[in-house]
C-alpha cells in the first residue's frame, strides 16, 4: 500500500517528488520548471525509449544477414540520413530565402520563380565544356 511518509522530527516540505507544492517560493527564475521533466540518466542509461522492435524489412528473406547488417550499420545509417536531411533542408532554406529576398527588388526574365543566382547562372559561368564530367 502506498503511504504518505513523514519521518519523525522532520519539517514537512515538497518538491517534484512530494505532495506539497509550497515549499519553495515561486520566483521568475523558476517559473517554467514544471514544463520540463527531469531525466534520470542513471536509471535510463540502458533502458530503450521504446519497446517496439518490429521491423518489417528484417522479417523477410535472409533475415539473419539483414539483422547482422542492420545491427552493425544502424548508427551510420541514422547519422548519415540525419545529416542528409539537414543538408537538404539547409539547401532549401538558402534557395527559398534568396528567392524571396530577390523578389523584393526584381524578377528573372526567363522564369520569375528563379532567384538571382539561378537566373544568372550560366551567364558568368564560363565552364561550358560538356566533355569534362566533373566540371559539368
Amino acid at each position, binding site marked *: 500500500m502506498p503511504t504518505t*511518509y513523514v519521518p519523525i522530527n522532520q519539517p514537512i516540505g515538497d518538491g517534484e517528488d*512530494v505532495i506539497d507544492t509550497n515549499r519553495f517560493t515561486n520566483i521568475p527564475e523558476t517559473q517554467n520548471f514544471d*514544463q520540463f521533466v527531469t531525466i534520470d540518466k542513471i536509471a535510463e542509461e540502458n533502458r530503450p*525509449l521504446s519497446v517496439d522492435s518490429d*521491423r518489417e524489412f528484417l522479417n523477410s528473406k535472409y533475415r539473419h544477414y539483414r539483422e547482422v547488417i542492420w545491427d552493425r550499420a544502424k548508427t551510420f545509417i541514422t*547519422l548519415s540520413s540525419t545529416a542528409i536531411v539537414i543538408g537538404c533542408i539547409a539547401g532549401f532554406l538558402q534557395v527559398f530565402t534568396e528567392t524571396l529576398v530577390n523578389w523584393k527588388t526584381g524578377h528573372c526574365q526567363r522564369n520569375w520563380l528563379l532567384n538571382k543566382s539561378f537566373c544568372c547562372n550560366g551567364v558568368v559561368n564560363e565552364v561550358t565544356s560538356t566533355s569534362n564530367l566533373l566540371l559539368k
Partner: protein
Amino acid sequence: RQEFECEAQGLWIAWKGHVSPFIIFMLLSVLFALISTLLVKYVAPMATGSGISEIKVWVSGFEYNKEFLGFLTLVIKSVALPLAISSGLSVGKEGPSVHYATCCGYLLTKWLLRDTLTYSSQYEYITAASGAGVAVAFGAPIGGVLFGLEEIASANRFNSSTLWKSYYVALVAITTLKYIDPFRNGRVILFNVTYDRDWKVQEIPIFIALGIFGGLYGKYISKWNINFIHFRKMYLSSWPVQEVLFLATLTALISYFNEFLKLDMTESMGILFHECVKNDNTSTFSHRLCQLDENTHAFEFLKIFTSLCFATVIRALLVVVSYGARVPAGIFVPSMAVGATFGRAVSLLVERFISGPSVITPGAYAFLGAAATLSGITNLTLTVVVIMFELTGAFMYIIPLMIVVAITRIILSTSGISGGIADQMIMVNGFPYLEDEQDEEEEETLEKYTAEQLMSSKLITINETIYLSELESLLYDSASEYSVHGFPITKDEDKFEKEKRCIGYVLKRHLASKIMMQSVNSTKAQTTLVYFNKSNEELGHRENCIGFKDIMNESPISVKKAVPVTLLFRMFKELGCKTIIVEESGILKGLVTAKDILRFKRIKYREVHGAKFTYNEALDRRCWSVIHFIIKRFTTNRNGNVI
C-alpha cells in the same frame, strides 16, 4: 560585376519606376512577415525563436515538451524561417538552424533506432545534429562541431563518441549542401571570402578597440533585449501578430533607404568582408566602398561613413526589438552584421587618417568586427574563431581574430555577464539548467546549507510488495494527491513502523509502462501482487505475482543529512541523476531532486544578491502610454469612425 552583367543582359530585371519598387519592397516585406508569424501562431507555436535555450536545457537532462522537436515544428520552422528572414526583420537563420537540425536528429533517431535508443545515446545524436545545424548555416563544419561542444553540451558529458558523431554528421550535412550548391557558385555560404594581404603589428590597438566594441555590444544588447522581452510580456503579449507586422513595416521603411540595411544580411556581409583590389578591372568584385581612397572627396567619404554608422546603430536597435518576436529568429547573423558595418566604418577612418590607401585590408576589419559581436552576444570563443576562420580560410588573420575574441570575452567577464544570450534566456524564461560554472559568491552562500534544509521530507513510498490495483490507483487516479514522478521503495517489515528503510527507487514513467504491458483485468488486479525486491520463491511460489524488480533502481544515490548543498549540486551535475535519497543510519529521511536544488539555488541567489534581471517598470509604463496613445489615434472611436 557578375550581377551587373546579368542585369545588363536583361536576364534579371529590377523593378522599374520611382514609387513601385518601394511599394513592392514594403508589401512583400510585410506579407512575408505576416505569413511567417501566422504559421507560427496557429500551426506550430513551438517554432518561434531560436530554440537554442530549450535544446541546451534538454541536453542537460530536462526533457521539454515533445512537440518542441516534433515533425510539425520542423516543417513550420523550415517554411516560416525563410519568410521571416526575407521580410527584412533583423533576425538570422543560424540559431533556428540548430532547432530544425535537432528536430531532424530527434525524429530520425527515434524512428530508426526505436528499439535500442536510450536517453543517454539520444543526447549524443541531438548534440551531433545541433552542431550540424550550425555547420550548414555558416558553412563551417568544424565550427559546428565546436558549437555542439562549447554551447549545447556545456553542461553535459561531451565524450569521444559524441565528438565523432558530431564530426560525421557535420561532414555529411555540409557535403550534401555543397552538392546542392544553393548559390550556384560552388560555395555554401554567401559571405565566404579570402584575404591575400597580411596584417601588421601596428594594427593591434585597432583590433583591441574592435574587441571592446564586441564586449560592449554583447553586454548592452542582451541587457536591452531582455528588458524589451519583459516589456513585451507585460504589454504586448496579446498582439504578437500586430507586433511582427509593425516591426516588419518599420524595418522595411528604414532599411529601404540604406544600402547596408536593405540588402539581405548575409549578402551585405559578403560585400563588407570583401577585400578590395584597387585598379584592377578584371576583379570579379566591385563596390563603391572600394573606390574610396585619400583623394576621394570628403563628402563622398562622409556619405559612406555615416551610412555605415547609421546601419550599425539602427541594426543594433532593431536586433533588440526583433529577437524574441513571434517568428523563427536567431541573433547570430544580425549581430555579425552590426559588427561588420562597425568594423568597416573603422577601416574607413584608419585608411583615411592613419595608414593611407592599400596598407590595411578594410574587409578584414569588417570580418573582425563581426567576430567580436558574434562572440559578444554568444559568449563563445573557440567556436567563433573557428567559424570565422572557416569562412575566410585566412589563416594569417588567426591572431587578430583571437585577440579580438579574447578582448571581447575579457570585457564580458569583467562586466559580470555570465554566459551568452542563450544562457541568459534560460534564466529569463525560468528554465531548469545545471550550470557548469558557479561563481565564488554563490558557492560561499550555498556552502552554509545542508541537504537536511533542502530535502523534501513528506514522501510517497511504496512497499516492496503491493497489489496491482493499488499501484494502478496510485498512478492513474487523476484526483490523487500523489502527483509525483518517482517513489522510494521501502521494506515490507517497516510497513507499520514510523521510520522506514529505503531499498530502492522507481520512476513513475517506468511503472506506468510496465503496468501497461500487463494484461490483467480490474478484478484480477486486486489479487495480483507486485513485488519489487523479493523473488517468487520468497513469496512461496504464489500465483498472480508480477516481478517489477527490473524497473527498480536498487542502489539509488543516497547521502547523509549533513552533506553541504554545494556537494549535492556537484553530484547532480556529474552523475546526472534525478533524485538523491537522504538517509540517516539507514532510515529514509527525505529526498532531493535536481529541480529542488536549482530552485533552492536561485531563491538563495535572489535573497542574497537580488533579482538577476532588473527592469525599469516606470520607463515601461511610460513607453506603453505612448504606444497606447498612438494605437488609440489609429483605432475607431465610439461612432465607428477612424480617427
